[in-house]
């Protein structure tokens, strides 16, 4: 199964590649065969894609980030596929407040 180079992402914990209808094309790491997470993220990204970022609709969604405690899910869309990467959340700057 092709990993689409998703396991080379820094702080990688797991990845998912989904078809447009939410079917899992490829998966690995902690997200291997995790269909329930895939379904939730699929719904989220479909909703996010409909949100206009600028009024003239020139800018489109590039990446959606979901932070849960010390884990971050990053979702992006490319070639009508949904790419999900689960990473350890290591913010690069200290908390300012």
């Amino acid at each position, binding site marked *: 199964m092709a990993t689409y180079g*998703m396991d080379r992402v820094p702080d990688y914990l797991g990845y998912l590649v989904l078809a447009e209808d939410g079917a899992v094309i490829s998966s690995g790491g902690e997200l291997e065969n995790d269909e329930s997470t895939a379904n939730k993220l699929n719904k989220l990204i479909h909703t996010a894609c409909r949100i206009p970022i600028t009024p003239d609709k020139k800018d489109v969604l*590039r990446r959606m*980030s979901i932070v849960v405690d010390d884990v*971050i899910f990053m979702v992006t869309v*490319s070639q009508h596929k949904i790419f999900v990467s689960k990473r350890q959340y290591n913010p690069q*700057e200290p908390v300012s407040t």
Partner: protein
Amino acid sequence: MGCCFSSDEDKDVGIPNASERTPLLDPGQADHIQQIQGARSGSTYSQQNQKGDEQSEFNRILRQTAINVIDVTSTESQNLEQGEMQDRATQYSNRLNMVLSGSGKSRVYRPNLPNGITSPQMTLSAPPVSLSDLQLINDFSEKLASAAREIKIEHKESLVVTFGV
């Protein structure tokens, strides 16, 4: 019901002493033996004829079954005309949409994802969103949520107004 039986009778003409218990497929072996015996005795004509009728009957049933079965593994159908196939396809999709819309699940499948970006690996490998950004977003969404909760409609004028009386 009578008319249903009348069409059934035509089938059994080839078998002289056919009853409702005469199996359609079983006598294949028995016929074989009969045929061999018949060949020995020499009076085979009527049996051959009967066998031919049964053969054509089997073929007819096979053909009918093949027409009724949708073979999903073969892409082209041997029995359907191209036009008829498209007619059926549109009919099926119409029915499907009708059922989908009737069952409350009006979400007919439509791909609505944009083309997106060209290199997902690069985008996903980029450094994650900073904590200060995250805090900013959380603050704003909290403020917006509380503002939305605070919205109240104040009634000032009556909705029904009388003109010129």
